[in-house]
Structures are given as C-alpha cells and as structure tokens.
C-alpha cells in the first residue's frame, strides 16, 4: 500500500508542477497559485481541527493576520517582501495564542464561536480603523516575491508540499496520536496524565503558523489586502475544503482545497449563478459523502477498504 501512496503522491505533484507550464497561460497560473495557497490553508486547518475535533470557525483570523502583517511591513513601511513570511507566521501564532488560551480549556461549541467572533472583530477593526488600514479599500502596492508568476507558483507549490509533509509527519507522530486521542475522549486523556489544554493550544499555534504563512503569501501574490481576508466566507470555505478532502488526513484537505478552487473556476461560465450552483453541489456532496471525498476515495481505490 505504501508504494501505491508514493506513486499517487508523485503523480499528483507531477501533475500540479507540470500543468501550468504546459497550459502556458498567465491566468491559469494565477488560478493554480490561489489553489495551492488554499491547499496550505485547508491543510493547516485540518491539523488542529481535524485531529483534535475542535472546529475552528475563524481560520480567517490567522489568514488575515498574516496578510495584514505582510501588508504593514512591506506595503506601509516598505520592508523587504521576504520578511513578510516570518512576520505573518509570528502574528498568526500570537493571534492563535490570544484566542486559544482563554477558550480551549472549555468543552462544547464555545471554541467554534470564539474563533468565529474573533475573526469578525478583526474584520470590523480593519474596516473601522481606516486611518491605518485603508478601511474597506485595504492596503495595496505590496512588492511581488518573484518576477514571473510561474516562479511564484513553484515557490507556493514548494511551500504547500513542505506544509503537507511537516503537518502529515506530525499527525502520524506520537503527538498526532495524542491529538487524535483528545478528539476521541478528552477525559480519558486527562486521566492518563496528558495535559490536554497545552496540547490543544500548541497544535492551534502550529495550525495558525501555517495559515499565517499562507496569508502572507496570498497578500504578496495579490500585492494587496482587504478586510475581506478576515471574512467568514474565507473561514467557511477552508472548512468545506478540509471536509470535502477528508477530515484529519492533512493531504486530503490540501487536495480538497485545490479541487474545490478548480471547480469554482470551472463554474465561471455560469455568471451570477456560479456560487449558487457551487453551494448546491456542495450540499449534495456533504449529504451523500459524509466522510468527505478525496481521502476516503483514495483509501477505497488503493484497496484499504471503505
């Protein structure tokens, strides 16, 4: 089975790396860049929420935090654009701790609500403090990281690969097992002497770090940020991507992000009906494929049963 996984993975990477230069179209390269960034977001969401079972409804908080960190450093103050990436990570981790520390000790839906609220607060703040943030217009005029968009694409693809690899290895490590055990039975974990709260907060920080990196990349790619980076729509899209990809699988979530983005792109011909059709398709998918699509399908195809 492992061989088949390696072959499948290599084929996928080959396809993702080979398709944009073959199509040789600026527009499609842009689509693939956004796909790969979405993959980073979905995989990072999956690492915390997929493993521990605490649904984060405000991943946009970390994405937007990373994006605005990049925008302030590079756009407002004119620092080197490469500094944006570590800065995005740092800000996102700080935000993750800020939300995680008070709320992750609670059980129930409170964490979901707190993350939802925090992202919405940040969006409001980004709009209302227009003197500093440019209001709804946002901040623009960021530098690009690469002259050619193909160069940018390969960089983002490499970051996506590294994200999936690092998070995937972490998810299969002892730590990943602990996180999954927390999802299964938190009380039993506590009884076994595991400091549940610390593990949850640490994994949220890791999840936030990669989301912030993705956010900073996105800002540098768009060369602009807007308060929409904090929007509920972003958080929700990320969850849907991970869900369709298969919760807890990391690589499936990343692929879910890529596929859903491509699907949305294919529906572009539908004009204003596009999002409506997209959600209707998602409704059918969520209803009939309860465990998600990508990862479970691969498991079935590669012969490991349903």
């Amino acid at each position, binding site marked *: 089975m492992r061989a088949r996984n390696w072959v499948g993975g290599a084929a996928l990477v080959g396809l993702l790396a080979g398709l944009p230069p073959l199509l040789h179209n600026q527009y499609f390269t842009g689509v693939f860049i956004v796909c790969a960034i979405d993959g980073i977001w979905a995989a990072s969401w999956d690492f915390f929420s997929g493993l521990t079972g605490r*649904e984060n409804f405000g991943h946009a908080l970390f994405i937007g935090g990373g994006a605005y960190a990049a925008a302030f450093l590079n756009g407002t103050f004119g620092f080197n654009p490469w500094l944006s990436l570590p800065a995005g990570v740092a800000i996102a981790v700080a935000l993750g701790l800020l939300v995680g520390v*008070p*709320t992750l*000790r*609670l*059980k*129930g*839906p*409170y964490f*979901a*609500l*707190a993350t*939802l*609220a*925090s992202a*919405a*607060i940040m969006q*409001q*703040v980004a*709009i*209302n403090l227009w003197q500093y943030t440019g209001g709804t217009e946002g901040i623009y005029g960021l530098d690009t990281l690469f002259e050619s968009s193909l160069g940018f694409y390969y960089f983002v693809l490499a970051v996506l690969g590294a994200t999936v690899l690092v998070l995937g290895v972490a998810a299969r490590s002892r730590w990943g097992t602990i996180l999954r055990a927390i999802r299964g039975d938190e009380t039993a974990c506590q009884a076994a002497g595991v400091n549940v709260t610390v593990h949850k907060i640490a994994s949220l920080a890791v999840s936030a770090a990669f989301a912030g990196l993705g956010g900073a990349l996105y800002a540098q790619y768009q060369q602009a940020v807007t308060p929409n980076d904090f929007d*509920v729509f972003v958080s*929700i899209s990320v*969850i*849907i991507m991970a*869900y369709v990809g298969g*919760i807890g699988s990391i690589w499936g979530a990343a692929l879910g992000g890529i596929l859903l983005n491509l699907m949305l792109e294919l529906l572009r011909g539908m004009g*204003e*009906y596009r*999002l*409506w059709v997209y*959600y*209707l398709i*998602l*409704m059918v998918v*969520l*209803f009939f494929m*309860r465990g998600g699509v990508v990862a479970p399908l691969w498991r079935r195809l590669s012969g490991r049963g349903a």
Partner: protein
Amino acid sequence: MLTVLIYGAVTSAILAMLAVGFTLIFGVARILNLAHGAFYALGAYFAYTFTAILKLPLIVAAALSVALVALFGVAMERVLVRPLRQSSLAVLMITLVVALTTEQALFVAFGSQSKNVPAFVNFPIYLHGVSVDGQRLLALVIAVALIGALWLFIQRTRLGSAILAVSQDPEAAQYMGIPANRIFTIVMGLSAALAGAAGVIAAPFLSVRPTMDQTAMITAFSVVIVGGLGSIPGSILAALVIGYSQTIVAFYLNPEWTGTVSLVAILLTLVLRPSGLMGRAVGA
C-alpha cells in the same frame, strides 16, 4: 434619553426573537443551526415579495411569510439535518451550506442592492414628546407578544411539556412515549417561524439585503453565548444587555462600532463566565 430607551428596547426585542429560537433548537435537539440567520433573511424577503411585488394585504403577507419560513425550517430538518444527526460537524456543515445557498439564491433572485419593505404603520407615535417610528413600536409589541406566547406554550401545554422533556433527556423522553424526532421537527418549525417573524416585522426599518443573514446569525450567536446556550430566560436577558449596548454605542459613540459590541460581548463572556449569564456550568 427616552429615545435610547425605546430604540434599545426595539433592538433587544428583535434580537431576543432571533436568539430564543436559536437557543431553543440547541437546547432541545443539540443542533447548532447555522441556517438560523437565513430564516430571518427569508422572512424579510418573503415580506418584500408579498407586499412590494404582489401587493397583498399586509396581514396576509406577514402570515404567509412566517408560514413559508416555518415550512422551510421543517423541510430542512426532515430532509437534510435528520439523516446527519449522528455527527455534529456534519450538521454544522449542512446548515452552513443551506445558509450560503439561500444567500446566493436571494442574490440571484433579487440582486445585491437593498430593498425597501413598506411599513405596517408608517406614522410616528409621540411618547412624552419623543416621536417614535410606529413600525418600531409595533415590532416591539409583536416581539414581546410572540415570545410571551412561546413561553406560555412551553410551560402550559402538553406539547410544551414534551419539548421540555426531550430537552432534558431525549432517550428517557422516548421511553415515556414522546416521539423525539417529531418534537425536533416541531421545534425547528417554531424556531424558524420566530426568526422569520423577526425578519418580517424588522424588514421595514432594515436594509433588506442577501447578506443580512450573516450579521443576524453572529448577533444571535453572541446573544445566546452571553445568555448561556440552551437557556431561554438567559437569551432574553442577554438580548436586553446586547441590544441596549448596541443602541448606546450607536447613539453616543459611532454607529460603525455597533457590530463590534456583540463580538466583544462574546469574548468577554467566554473569558469571564463561559456558561453565560444563566447557563448551566460548563466543564473546565
């Protein structure tokens, strides 16, 4: 001062209508219904369609709108939510997608610009020398009446007792011969009707837009958290707290920051008293 008092009461009453339905379905069926805001938006758009486009009499239009929203809620519960009830994440996701689909459907059908819904009462009423928009006052009266009626229904009728029984222990209730599934459907219908009614009566003084469900959803969320998940009196109390805070911020500071009030209230509650004002204690 009196103006703030009255406007605050109106805002609180609309919020309470939204929050009570939301907390009711959570308390009874443990469903966090993310489509709750969509019920509210649908109520407002049905009211717009029946009054502004089809020119139906106001009372008929209002009743028809509420009934249709209730039907929508029941259909959603029966068709989409019930088969997925084993997994709370699946329920969250499907209700979320229902909300997004509704929003997009409204966008396609009506466009993104806001619609005006004719007021039921369009003359000002003078209270101690302060002129108050009649529609707002009517909204306040209707909201109080509907919440009061719901309270009496739950406390005084057999069906109400059955709802309470299911909310305490669905399995035990089932053993007593109470059809839990049917109760869930009824409660979802009630909850949808209440949110739809809130949309109908608030529509004339709101900007009716496809995205109105999001603000409504987040505010209802915050009210329910501040009040304590599952507690109806808690929701009402929290609706007053948040409704008045929003009105005071809008009057004395800046209307732009009203949206932030409820969000800050959520965070404060989660940090200081996670079980909410009147909720059951949550395990640490």
